[in-house]
């Protein structure tokens, strides 16, 4: 098989699942806007991001399934794991909040993804490097789009500015988790397969600060402040269970059926 390394397949699978779950769960959240956006063009844009993310998720799950073998499929990984098995960062599963909160989360996530994928290009794992390469173009657009919107809303009306400050307050303590490596991340780094997320924190902070500044929003310095964690190792918020109940219902109700 494609397994090119001598650290455990489990760890590699977990490494990939973290990447995949992040994109699937955020895609699921963003897709809640589809048909309900504030402007038609932006309804289309957020759905487009949702589509890009689910595309990334599929590539990653397919790869993880091929490594795991035993007839596992992308759908089995997405639809038949329980909430303690999902490895997405908590920020991706938080409720959308208003449009401002949604796009601020997108900025935080996309800047992280951009830095991550840029490094992942160097992965010894050719499949991961290829997925990163393909995804990087999409993510670059996500960063641009969400930056523009954060600036627009931060430096828009009094109301929009206040809403963005509130969104910042709500989301900030969920951004630290990106940079605290899970055991499978540490292992993947040691094998030159994974990305050292701790090294991404400073460039992430700089890029985010730059956008917040232009958005006339309070620039957060306290990247080392207390942060929510747990998602990467399956300890989630109470929100994920409800996401899964809805998302997985069909596969759970009709086991083994093809769609």
């Amino acid at each position: 098989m494609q397994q090119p390394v001598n650290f455990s397949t489990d760890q590699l699978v977990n490494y990939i699942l973290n990447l995949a779950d992040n994109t699937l769960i955020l895609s699921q959240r963003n897709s809640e806007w589809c048909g309900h956006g504030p402007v038609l063009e932006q309804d289309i844009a957020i759905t487009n991001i949702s589509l890009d993310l689910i595309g990334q998720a599929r590539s990653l799950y397919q790869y993880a399934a091929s490594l795991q073998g035993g007839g596992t499929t992308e759908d089995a990984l997405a639809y038949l794991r329980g909430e303690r098995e999902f490895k997405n960062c908590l920020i991706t599963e938080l409720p959308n909040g208003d449009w401002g909160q949604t796009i601020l989360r997108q900025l935080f996530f996309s800047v992280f993804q951009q830095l991550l994928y840029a490094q992942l290009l160097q992965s010894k794992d050719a499949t991961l490097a290829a997925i990163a390469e393909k995804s990087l173009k999409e993510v670059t657009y996500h960063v641009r789009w969400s930056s523009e919107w954060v600036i627009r809303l931060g430096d828009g009306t009094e109301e929009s500015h206040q809403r963005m400050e509130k969104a910042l307050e709500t989301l900030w303590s969920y951004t630290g988790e990106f940079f605290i490596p899970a055991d499978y991340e540490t292992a993947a780094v040691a094998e030159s397969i994974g990305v050292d997320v701790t090294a991404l924190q400073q460039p992430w902070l700089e890029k985010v600060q730059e956008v917040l500044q232009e958005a006339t929003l309070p620039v957060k310095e306290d990247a080392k402040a207390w942060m929510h964690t747990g998602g990467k190792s399956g300890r989630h918020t109470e929100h994920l269970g409800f996401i899964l109940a809805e998302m997985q219902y069909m596969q759970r109700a009709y086991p083994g059926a093809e769609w």
Partner: protein
Amino acid sequence: MSVQELEKIFQDKVDQEIKIEPKDWMPDAYRKTLVRQISQHAHSEIVGMLPEGNWISRAPSLKRKAILLAKVQDEAGHGLYLYSAVETLGTTRNQTIEDLHSGKAKYSSIFNYPTLTWADIGAIGWLVDGAAILNQVMLCRASYGPYARAMVRICKEESFHQRQGFEILLVLSKGTPEQQAMCQDAINRWWWPSLMMFGPKDSESTHSDQSMTWKIKRKSNDELRQQFVDMIVEQAKILNVTLPDPALQWNAERGHYDFGEIDWVEFWNVVKGNGPCNKQRLEARRKAWDEGAWVRDAAAAHAEKRKARQEVKAA
């Protein structure tokens, strides 16, 4: 030039299949009819996102979820083209949308039916998009240029959607007994509402004659409906499903399928606002619009600020 002369030139163009363009003179009634018809069509795309959007979070596989997302997104795109076409006639998008929210403008009644199972997503693609396409193909040759051109783009995507819907049902029809039942059930529920999409019978249709003359419409409701029935009956055979109409049978003499009478009481009832989801759909649209107001305001305010700053710089 007198109005009579202008009207003559206009009608000559129409008759010679020369497209009418935004800057051309056109009769007020032509303009009004177009605004009404195109905006109704635009609203149908936007409201039509809701019944299908209802299944995005629950789509049964990642592939189906991605396809469905892309499809609903396409509909938003169609809405955009059409609102733009309305704008070429001098009515702003905001005005058009307000008319929807106030209940002044209509949208296709089909979207007032609920999507109850996953098979409904297939049935909508196959039957609802199938019915829509017949109308839209005709409209690709509409006399008003921007409308006709929007329709050309829409038609391409729409026939893709119809195939996707058919394929959803095809998989179900070959699936477990539960899936087969789900497929048949969805078709049972969507068949008659799809037939209603072509509107009242020709004998009861109010706007048709003038629209034919203006070449906004080229086929009558009943013609299109017959075309639809003939097409679907054949495709149903591949799906191995029945259509819920005992009167449905081949009429060799006419070279068409005969079919039963539509429940016109239900038709008018839904048009009047009493469909299963009329309230729900309009409320969802109003809510999205109202809750998005601060976003639109902020974007406008930011654009103003930016412009002002650039002027200062330039000065």
